[in-house]
Each structure stands twice: as C-alpha cells, then as structure tokens.
C-alpha cells in the first residue's frame, strides 16, 4: 500500500519537476513554457484526482523528501536529454 503511494508521489513530482524546468529554461520559447505548464497541470490533476490523498499513511516526511529529490534528479536528466534531442534536430 505504502509503496504504491510512494510510486504515485515519485511520478507526480517527476512530471511536475519536468514541467517546472521546461518553464524555467523556456527563455523566448512560449511553446516550451506552455508545454511545461501543461505537464504541471496534468501531473497535479492526475495525482489529486486518481486517489483520495487525505488518508493516513505511514510514509514519513523524510521519505517524501528523498523521493522528491530523486524525482527532481531524474527530471533534470530527462530535461537534459529532451534539450539535447531538440538541438540535434
């Protein structure tokens, strides 16, 4: 049960971080900014509408912090790969 919660949380924070990074590095590209915004909105919508998030879990704040850090790291990697593949084209 808890592991599913952490997986959900990882996916949510991964995509939300990816969206924020796209918005942040957008410079003059409104397409990239809007893409980032859409990714964030969809990640929030999915996370908060797929399950009731107001129920007790044994997941600690420290675990959430570590999962957020990991998700942010992988989001940076994904954004880097995304930026590299766009440049190559």
């Amino acid at each position, binding site marked *: 049960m808890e592991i599913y919660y952490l997986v959900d949380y990882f996916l949510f924070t991964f995509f939300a971080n990816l969206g*924020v990074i796209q918005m942040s590095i957008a410079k003059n590209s409104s397409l990239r900014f809007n893409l980032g915004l859409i990714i964030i909105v969809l990640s929030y919508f999915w996370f908060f509408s797929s399950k009731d998030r*107001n129920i007790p879990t044994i997941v600690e704040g420290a675990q959430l912090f570590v999962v957020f850090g990991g998700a942010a790291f992988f989001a940076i990697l994904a954004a880097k790969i995304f930026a590299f593949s766009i440049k190559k084209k």
Partner: protein
Amino acid sequence: MNWLSLDKNLFLFINGFAGNTPLLDFLVQLVVNEYFVPVTLTLVIVYIWFGRGKLNKGSRQVLPIAALSVGLVNLLIAFSNQFIIRTRPFDELVTNMLFYKPTDPSFPSNAAAVGFALAVSILLVNRKLGVYSLALAAFYGVSRVYVGVHFPSDVIVGVLIGIISVLFVSNFKRSIRLLTSKIEDFQSRLNLEF
C-alpha cells in the same frame, strides 16, 4: 476569558464553516494534505534555481536556506514533541472532520511551520513569488484548523517556528554562499546545467 478558551472559541468559529460551502470544502481538502503545498512551494524553489538569468542574482541561495530551515523546523518540532503533548481538537471538542485523525501531538503545527519556512525562504530572494507563496502557506495553515486537526494557536506557533528558522539559517551568509556554490559545482560536474 483566558487564551486557551479564546483559542478553542476561534477553532470552533473557523471549523464551524466546514461542511457548509462545497467549493471552499473542495479547495481546503485539495491543499490540506502533506503533498499539495510542500510540493508546490518546493517547485517554486526549483523554478528559481533554474531561472537564474531572469531572476535576481544570488537567488539560488533559496535552495540551501529552505532545505536547512525545513531541517531545523523538523528538529525543533521533534524536540518540542518530547515535552509538550497537546491533544488534537477532535479529542476535546465536537468537531466537523474533513480530514483523517492524526495521532501525533497537535502543538505546534508541523504543516504550518514547513509551509512558512519554504514561503519565507522564497520571499527572501524574490518578493513577487514570495508573496504568493506566503498566501498559499497561510491558506495551508488556516485549512488545518478548518478541517479540525489543529487549534489556531498550534498554527500560529508553527508559523513563528517556520519564520524564525529561516531568519536564523539565513544569518549564516558565508556558509549559505559556500553551500550554494558546492551544489552548483556538483550540478556542473554532472553536466546538468542548462
């Protein structure tokens, strides 16, 4: 009227709105959990970190300030919980519950402390984003009373702990600058700069 009864009366006033306005209930239930506000405010910090060119110089210091402040907040609350064990409002009063019943001590509010530590950290480096963050953190704090899991005084003391932690941590300017450059070095060594 002593402050404890004032606190309880204020709790009953705020919690009395719960269950009466579906839209407000929905908004509160969206933000009141452990995920919405902490994640949103941390994403603002990520945005500031990567948006270096557009934002003020030195704004990247928000990351170590926020991380250390939240760490300090957790230490202070863990310490406080060893000595002050206040029961939750739903254990003492007839409460409109819109949230699950936490089992840890009510005082002080960990959620309010973390929310304000993150928001004040953001305010230190960016006024506009900081004001929005403070508004969100304040709504988070009030929502904990609204759903019946905290007394107003728990939230007020939580807010104070959050603010004082940030002000304390941000005093160590040299260490913060050093930590920021260490994180930047680590990031560039991994070739993860944009």
